[in-house]
């Protein structure tokens, strides 16, 4: 399947990245109802879903080349965004195998993989055409790659990756490549167990949500990956919203006004998947980040209305935790004209195959 890559887009500085109409239509909109309720909301990651973004194990879209470049810039500035504790090497190889197998199977015109044999010790040749890379290496021998396996393959994948070691009745966040996170630090959290790294999340601890979630995660089986969505909002289409660089993007939160909020405020959706890894028995946790601006989202009428209703009914503590409080009123003012109050169907599907045209939108805004 052909992808129209846009290699020169930027996710920092002039923030030139934009979504094509196709990218907007396949956006994994996260709200099935007019009110947002926090829940574990896991479902099988089996190729079914309301948008094309769910079709493959690891989604590759038009931003692939630009995202890989942005990751490389972040790593250059801060190598600590990719870490793996020493006992996680087997899990790193499991991860490299999973990504290479899936990408070459699902996107054969972009990625190829050949192996001299099925086991560790075989020679593999990997070709990544969009990035212009070819690598021959021995599967299981880190000295034959330019860097450790996790770093090597995740530099060629969209989204963040965390690997959890499963032991002592819990999960430990013992490795990761984290350059597009919504505000958590890998360097601080690496080595923490499940309850520790969720420490700062409000509301859910009392309800026992995390205890149940942990038991569920520990039972995830090889061959049966699962997924859920998480969401927040970001000013500018910026991938690196890490706490490390908060001094850089923090001031943007106070920079929104009625004239620019449609273009600058983005809904940030994380498609989180979970995979049991075969040899290490670890759990791979990819976090694939999608960004769409308000003025892109309202071109899907259902989504504009639903977003208005969800944001308008968000509990203040949740808005505070997600960092939205400062600009929420301005966002609601922007979205209000798009909501006609009509009942909407439950579900996240776009409900249209054509987007509202931009000039019709500005009619709406100036009315």
């Amino acid at each position, binding site marked *: 399947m052909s992808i129209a890559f846009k290699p020169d887009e930027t996710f920092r500085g002039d923030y030139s990245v934009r979504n094509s109409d196709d990218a907007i239509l396949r956006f994994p909109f996260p709200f099935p109802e007019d009110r947002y309720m926090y829940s574990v909301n896991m479902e099988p990651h089996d190729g079914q879903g309301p948008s094309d973004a769910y079709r493959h194990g690891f989604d590759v879209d038009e931003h692939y080349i630009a995202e890989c470049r942005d990751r490389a810039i972040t790593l250059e500035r801060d190598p600590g965004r990719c870490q793996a504790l020493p006992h996680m090497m087997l899990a790193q190889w499991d991860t490299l195998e999973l990504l290479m197998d899936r990408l070459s199977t699902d996107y054969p015109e972009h990625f190829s993989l050949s192996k001299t044999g099925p086991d560790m010790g075989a020679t593999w040749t990997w070709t990544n055409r969009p990035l212009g890379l070819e690598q021959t290496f021995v599967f299981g021998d880190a000295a034959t790659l330019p860097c450790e396996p996790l770093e090597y393959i995740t530099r060629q994948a969209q989204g963040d990756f965390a690997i959890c070691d499963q032991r002592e009745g819990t999960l430990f966040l013992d490795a990761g490549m984290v350059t597009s996170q919504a505000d958590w*630090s890998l360097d601080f959290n690496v080595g923490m167990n499940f309850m520790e790294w969720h420490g700062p999340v409000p509301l859910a601890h009392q309800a026992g949500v995390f205890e149940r979630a942990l038991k569920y995660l520990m039972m995830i089986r090889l061959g049966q990956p699962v997924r859920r969505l998480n969401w927040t909002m970001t000013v500018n289409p910026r991938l690196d919203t890490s*706490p490390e660089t908060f001094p850089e993007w923090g*001031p943007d939160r106070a920079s929104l006004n009625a004239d620019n909020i449609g273009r600058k405020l983005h809904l940030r959706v994380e498609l989180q998947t979970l995979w049991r890894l075969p040899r290490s028995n670890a759990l791979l946790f990819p976090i694939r980040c999608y960004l769409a601006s308000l003025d892109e989202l309202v071109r899907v009428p259902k989504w504009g209305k639903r977003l208005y209703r969800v944001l308008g009914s968000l509990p203040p503590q949740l808005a505070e935790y997600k960092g939205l409080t400062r600009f929420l009123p301005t966002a609601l003012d922007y979205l209000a004209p798009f909501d006609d109050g009509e009942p909407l169907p439950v579900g996240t599907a776009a409900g249209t195959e054509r987007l509202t045209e931009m000039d019709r939108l500005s009619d709406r805004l100036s009315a």
Partner: protein
Amino acid sequence: MPLNPSEVTSRPVYPPLSADPRAARHWLVLEAGSLDGELLAELHTAFAPVAARLQVCWVGTSAPPADWGAFTVLPDVAALGSVLAQAQPLAVNDRLCAQGTEPFVWGVAALAAQAGLATAQVQLAHAGSQRRRVWCTHCHGFTDDVTTSVVACAGCGRHLLVRDHFSRRHGAFMGVMVDAEQPGVRPAVQEVFP
């Protein structure tokens, strides 16, 4: 002064130190000046059953209690490294317990881990000042002896909000720039970890 409870689950909670009668050897590492007479008496009682296989390390300059047995007096936490090195090979049933300020005990924990002890073999407890070691999210440097809600980072100078999120690996609390959204607009500094 007892530590304030926190909703943040990474913030350690410390039960009182106890001796393990099934252990082979115990090390009890205490921070001079942080433990009051009552606490020292409690520890003396708690570890009496294992006294024959116990080495007590008194770290700091003030004099150890007179009514205990022998102490190994150490000038600083780093000196504990030699003590443990001389005790090698350490076994699964050895135990190390430490009590004092949080920066002290987590410094001991790091040394114990380097010496090969598993976390289940190490018990920590708090006594004395609530002062914190703070890790700067931005420059990844440490700022010590923090008693206030906001502190200027010793590494990069940014003003950091001291949070309760704690990393056992770093032995420190997270500090995040408090005025990133509106530079210069900062809450009043309060003495919250005396």
